[in-house]
């Protein structure tokens, strides 16, 4: 389980989020919230991209004390990913696959599933936002993570890709992977079947069910 304890996130002196205690049990968790409510900020902290106050831990593994072990088990896809524009999708996938200790053949399978293989040899700087998003999602599934955090996983994707991503989430969940994902728009929960929903409101994360 993924836990936050005395979690606070501020920019300069402005408090953005404050979560005294929260535990995400295994499953699929859907975080809702309006633009600028702090969803991406929370995810950036959970993925180890942004500094924070308090504690974030995966079971007994504290993000601050054991970042390597934690990051091997928690993967992330950003809402609006940016990659070094002169690297090809394949360069990035191979690099991330190696460091995330992906099983042999996994990268090829994922790139085929999302049709990233069609353009993976081109430089990222030439990709459309949808192509970049799909690459980012492939990278988030690499390795053997216990948790995958997906920030707005369906935006900029066409309907076909949205259904594929939803299917990947459901299949991975069946294999024991837990998910945290966010949307600011209503979406058809029958696709992903999130077991828990939360709302980011008034600088806090409030469980809805």
């Amino acid at each position: 389980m993924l836990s936050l304890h005395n979690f606070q996130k501020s920019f300069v002196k402005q408090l953005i989020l404050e979560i005294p205690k929260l535990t995400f049990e295994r499953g699929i968790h859907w975080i809702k919230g309006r633009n600028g409510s702090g969803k991406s900020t929370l995810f950036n902290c959970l993925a180890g991209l942004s500094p924070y106050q308090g504690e974030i831990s995966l079971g007994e593994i504290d993000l601050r004390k054991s970042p390597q072990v934690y990051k091997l088990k928690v993967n992330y896809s950003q809402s609006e990913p940016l990659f070094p524009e002169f690297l090809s999708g394949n360069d990035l996938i191979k690099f991330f696959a190696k460091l995330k200790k992906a099983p042999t053949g996994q990268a090829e399978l994922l790139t085929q599933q999302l049709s990233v293989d069609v353009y993976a040899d081109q430089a990222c700087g030439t990709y459309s936002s949808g192509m970049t998003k799909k690459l980012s999602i492939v990278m988030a599934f690499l390795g053997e993570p216990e948790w995958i955090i997906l920030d707005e996983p369906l935006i900029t994707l066409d309907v076909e890709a949205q259904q594929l991503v939803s299917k990947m989430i459901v299949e991975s969940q069946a294999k024991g992977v837990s998910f945290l994902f966010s949307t600011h728009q209503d979406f058809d929960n029958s696709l992903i079947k999130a077991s828990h929903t939360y709302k980011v409101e008034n600088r806090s994360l409030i469980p809805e069910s």
Partner: protein
Amino acid sequence: MKAVRKVLVRALVKEFYKANTGFFLVVLGLGFGFLKTAQHVDLTSFLAVKPFYYLVVLVLWLLYTAKTLSFVFMVKRLPNNSWLSYLVLLNPLKRLLLVLHIQALLFLPILGYGFFMTAIAIQLNQWTSAVLVIAGNLILLFGATNMVESKLISPVDTKLQIGFKNFTNRLPKPFPMLFVHHLLNRQSILLLGTKTASLIVLVGSIWIFEMEGTDLRLLNLGLLLSAAVNAAFCFHYHQYQQSELLIYRNLPIANNLQFVWYGLSYLILMLPELMVFFGNLGLDISTLFLLKSALLPLTLLLFYHCLFYLKGIDMENFIKVVFFATAILFFVILGRIEVIFISGLFLLLSYFIFQKRGQESTD
């Protein structure tokens, strides 16, 4: 018009001076720290009498013009600045005057020095020289204005132009090379300008040493100033980490390995200086001395890089640290302190900061 002017000043002029604070600090430090006012007057008087040598000044001004143009073009290419294309809606004459005003603000340093040179030439009754300086400044100003105006209103493709950069893209792309590739692809004028300034400083120190012949401290001072010039890269590296390399923070990479990677990045960046340093002095001076000296700019750059892991370090504070560190080390080196101790100290400090704050990341 006032509202448009205000927005352009903020988006272009203020950002230009902010992005180049380090550059101006080094230029001012070198130009007015080593040369006193009387020496500037002597120099410009000589140029007024021998106007042929204005060509040297003109080349420097051309480089500066390229720097301003490169900055404006880079700003225009960013997706969040696509609104600049709406300037096409302004009356063409008003737009041209507005861009002239903006370009004149970007040109303030050379216009200021040009005014000083003109005044000296007039004082010496060297009217041809005065006309040459004024004409040179105006041609550059109007030429740049024309190019900027045309660029601002044209549509621009924000995507990478792969064909244009095919050669550099063939270089290997391990992590320590990513920032170098970024500079080659997106900040080539910054790279060229910084390397030119850094090499001028270094070659200058080698020349003075070769004329003087014995004082090895001169070489270390050259390397120290060269590191100060290259410190501009640390700020850009930090920005790059916050954008295109942000997701790399989700990777399970050991702290020590990351530290080595950043060290290698700066080693690659400093290769031109190191090649000039070893190439010019390798036969005359012991390799051990050269190796010890070469560590100085590398450890300093690593230290400057690690400064950004500390809380509250922004560009302004960063420039202050670089300036004071350079000023203090200047006298420390003159005081005959072994340069290996200075390098060791800064390497330890960098390692300590990175171990403490490297994984913490910054916003």
